[in-house]
């Protein structure tokens, strides 16, 4: 289960969050935990350098992409390595939506598109599409595999 996906700006303000199966009273805890992780570790990190944390059997992989920080929380089959895959999909489609590594401003400008991308990547806490091209087609309401060659 992908428990949460969280995007914050470099100051730790949350721009976007998607929780799956986390009760609302625990969400604040997770937010704080992740923002703190980012504040502690992400300063001076390279773009898309991956960081890892774990809390009991829950794994967290996070990274910095341009002006935003992305955190993914998963458990069970979504261990740190699977989250790495998910992270790769998310960063590449965000870059795709924004055209480059997004600044905070650019991210917010493309907010709607990014939400749709996430909707195609994670469907009810389960990873769905992983290919950039395919995601692009799906958010344009085109079939996943192109019918015209």
């Amino acid at each position, binding site marked *: 289960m992908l*428990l949460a996906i969280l995007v*914050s*700006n470099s*100051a730790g*303000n*949350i721009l*976007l*969050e*998607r*929780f799956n199966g*986390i*009760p*609302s009273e*625990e969400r*604040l*805890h997770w*937010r*704080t935990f992740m923002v703190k992780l980012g504040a502690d*570790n992400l300063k001076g990190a390279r773009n898309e350098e*991956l*960081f*890892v944390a*774990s*809390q*009991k*059997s*829950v794994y967290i*992989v996070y990274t910095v992409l341009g002006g935003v920080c992305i955190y993914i929380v998963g*458990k069970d*089959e979504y*261990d*740190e*390595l*699977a*989250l*790495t*895959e998910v992270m790769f999909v998310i960063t590449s489609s965000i870059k795709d939506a924004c055209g480059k590594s997004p600044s905070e401003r650019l991210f917010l*400008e*493309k*907010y*709607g*598109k990014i*939400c*749709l991308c996430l*909707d195609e990547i994670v*469907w*009810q*806490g*389960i990873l*769905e*599409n*992983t*290919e950039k091209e395919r995601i692009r087609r799906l958010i*344009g*309401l*085109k079939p*996943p*595999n192109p*019918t*015209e060659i």
Partner: protein
Amino acid sequence: MADSSGTTLMDLITADPAPVPAAASSSSSSSASSMTAAASPSATHPQHVSTKTTLGEKKSKRAALMQIQNDTISVAKAALNPVRTNIISHQKQKQKQKKPVSYAQLARSIHELAATSDQKSSQKQLVHHVFPKLAVYNSVDPSLAPSLLMLDQQCEDRMVLRYVYYYLARILADTGSQGLNPGGGIPTPNWDALADIDAVGGVTRADVVPRIVNQLTTEATNTDVEFHARRLQALKALTYSPSSNIEILSKLYEIVFGILDKVGDVPQKRKKGIFGAKGGDKESIIRSNLQYGALSALRRLPLDPGNPSFLHHAVQGISFPDPVAVRHSLEIISDLAIRDPYAVAMALGKLVAPGGALLDVLHLHDVLARVSLARLCHTISTARSLDERPDIKSQFNSVLYQLLLDPSERVCFEAILCILGKHDNTEKTEERAAGWYRLTREILKLPEAPSNSKDKSQKTRRPQPLIKLVMRRLESSFRSFSRPVLHAAARIVQEMGRSRAAAHALGLQDLDEGAYGNQYDAVDSLDSDMNDSSHPEGIRRTTGVSNAAGGKDTIAGMLASLMEVVRTTVACECVYVRAMVIKGLIWMQSPHESFDELKSIIASELSDPAWPATLLNDVLLTLHARFKATPDMAVTLLELARIFATKVPGKIDADVLQLLWKTCLVGAGPDGKHTALEAVTIVLDLPPPQPESMSGFTSVDRVSASDPKSALALQRLVQAAVWFLGENANYAASEYAWESATPPGTALMMLDADKMVAAASSRNPTLAGALTRLQRCAFSGSWEVRIIAAQALTTVAIRSGEPFRLQIYEFLHALAQGGVQSQLSEMHLSNGEDQGASGTGLGVLITPMIKVLDEMYTAQDDLSKEIRNHDNANKEWKDEELKKLYETHERLLDLVSLFCYVPRAKYLPLGPISAKLIDIYRTRHNISASTGLSDPAVSTGISDLVYESKPAAAESDTLDDDLVNVWAANLGDVPAVNRVNEFLAGAGTDAPDVDENIISRPSVSYDDMWAKTLLESTEMEEDDVRSSGSSSPESTGSVETSISSHFGGMNYPSLFSSRPTTYGGASQPSERSGGSRVNNPSMYEGYGSSIREEPPPYTSPERYDSFENPLAGHGSHSFQSQDDDRVSSGNPQFGTALYDFTAGGDDELSLTTGEEVEIEYEVDGWFYVKKKRPGRDGKMAGLVPVLYVSQSSGST
């Protein structure tokens, strides 16, 4: 925080992006300024009331509702007016002011634009402004649904439609404000609640959901080829509807199966190279798209294990060309396989055969698909129900082994975990042990697969032992720079250690380690029965010596070189990776090897201030888990735990540490007990912390507590250790007064202190050592430590026989009179200083303790005099004399029970000589013949713990693990233990609590009760250091009260306390000195009969309000709230008496084991119960301790 970030987000997202407004970007940096920015628009435009309200504000809710209503009305108006101008004016307004757009505005725009969705500009407006901004809110107002549905039917624009599906899905998913919907961003009002406030015009989810579902269902069943992309999206949106709705669910099944029935059959075998986008004719691509959509939807539906068509469709999916569809189908099947491996294996049939679809998955470019494949193979290859079909099992097994060669670490590691026998967290030790066996013994043979001739795998065609592959893979992973990879690799090592420990625990170790892991010669002559013959006897070596000399080819050698790599990983800068590495090292640590290296690694790691406390406690819990797996390591693990106690006292949880101590002490067995106790008490021997400047190098034996906070925490640990020592020294030393062979009289003759000490240490060095330490603590150290040390000494004195009791008695006397210090001060009387309180300052505390011992000795003296008189005069004992004697006996027992728990039936305060006389009296008067049984300690198995001479004790050596299991299983709802259990079960914060200790004993064992008392107390002290504590008696409050309420302060729960004593705990104010006169019912058994002056002990919680002791405030509050929870809700509950209970007062009720009672209510750890029939004493109802009754229904 969410709110502040929300405002910032709001500003940025809603401001018009084209000209970059300086105000907006600056507001992103500080949330304070953005707050004002957000506030301003509502001031300038009062008609647009901001809906960014918290859910609790009713007033603004109402305002928001009004706003929505207004909007709806204005939509109606807008429909009449020329819309174009409306939009333009809207845009103008926006550009002019660049103000954030409120939710109401957005909602209004949607309504307006939906009406004109055929126009390009409206579509553009929707796609570029309205919908993206709406996405910021974490839920969607159901009143938008009509407009969205309108758009869905009329609009042609793909982007608009895509958003429409997105929002429809979110409306469906929204299960109310507290729901688990994957929302995010700015909180929105609870729409349904709003509609309830004022039903006029409100649109609720209940209204719109059926409409949405109908619309989506129609679309999802539309078979038009050109429509199929929308069909997929409609199906996807439908799956978001709550699964509790059976109607929608069955509709969904119908749709999905309908699609799969049509397109599910794949006539031709999948061609290579059409994965993904390339190749194929249009028809087959559309089919594959539909297959994908249907399977994805199926994956989100609840499993239907008994349904053959469910399984059939899932199995079909493996052959689908779409990789995501294949992944989903594998995931479904691997879930199904856990429930019914046989059916799944049969359904898969030929797919697993060479050239089958399952083998194609090996080359599928989808990591998670291969992960699921590994799980599936593991489940089937280990299924019991398939024991008849070894052919099937071996096929799946070989696929699993092939996955070890997978290029992706994720897949390879999953395969390793599967081989190791870890699939979820409920595996048994046997499974893990078998896993280790498999890993070390089995060999991977690649099947002849002509179809893969292009593959590189040709090079590795030679059969390889699994262990070798795994080691090589892990070693290379540890060389990776990616932190997730390092973390995962360390985790795999940890799991390997777990399986290895399990194998050792089951006695498989002789198969392993020294044996050659690999023999190329043997392997080259590959034949089918290689697995059986690959380890001829001659090659096996024993462990130990060959480890060093064995070189690369033995498993031990490979492990050694792996561990070398693992150790270097400690240098990783990520603390989580390091934690995982340390956990791995702890697990891989073999009980027979030196752990110096591990020790120094941990010691140097802990010097790093970057470690967060949670992580350290996690590592501590790993020690606990390691102990569970290998009880032999108790002492080693205690040594490691000590490093934590000394290095990072401020960060670790004293309760967890104490639990570990206790577990290890019990688990260490008779031989190890002494060492275990030494390891605990060594905390007391540490020199005081040195200033920071001194810490040039790392040493285990020096305390690092440079800041006040950790110095305080260290103090707490020391107190915990002292208390622990007092409570458990007798157990560790196997010295009990009621077993002592020495008659009390002889001790009186050894009053010479030196002789006494010599005699003591020769008799029982463990106890003597403990006493020495306690005595030192009672002299030196802070006053809190001294107090606890004095209490601990009393406990030991009461429980020990002579000469220990006398030794302590002497010591306490010295302490009370000022001991050494006062002697010294007499010598230097004239130095002019005010000496302050005399002596150690413990006088007031010690007096009652000495008094009890005094009384005991006096009574013993009297008794021996009486006996002599009777003997000399050859008189029979008269009944009155016996009665007097018995009464003295009881009175002393009651007194003693105030200080610590003793088994009443066994304990003889008058010494062994009194036993006979008391027995006579008892038999004559038929007094509580059952005392022996009713005694909780005896009846519940303290004998397991206490009487080592009995067979039960022998059992406790061998079954330590079990014992510990049972503890852990029954410890109850206590933070520390929960954490241990959760940790052991591998549960996350929100993971379902998997209780791996399902072994339940029919009756609560003594250990449980012990642990329960220990742990219940810890609840109260959770994070407040000052609130009353008891398992680790640290708090000033508790100590303060314990001084003032002489007896009340002795309430530390202990190995020997059988009642939930801590309910009163130290928070109980001085009932003797104070005026509030609250009688705590949880005082010790028998307390009431002689000492209690107050009638009803079942004080209602309110009575605590009258407390005037400020120090008790914390404790009593938390206590009280706990009570409120525990008082049952009124419906009658029934229970069964677990043990005999003898009423200790008028309000209490005697019970016989097995008696059925009705529980009226609970208060302070006592049940008020009613019996069906009056008991022997004629009473029907009264109080009994909670622990004595098992509730048959309901919960406390």
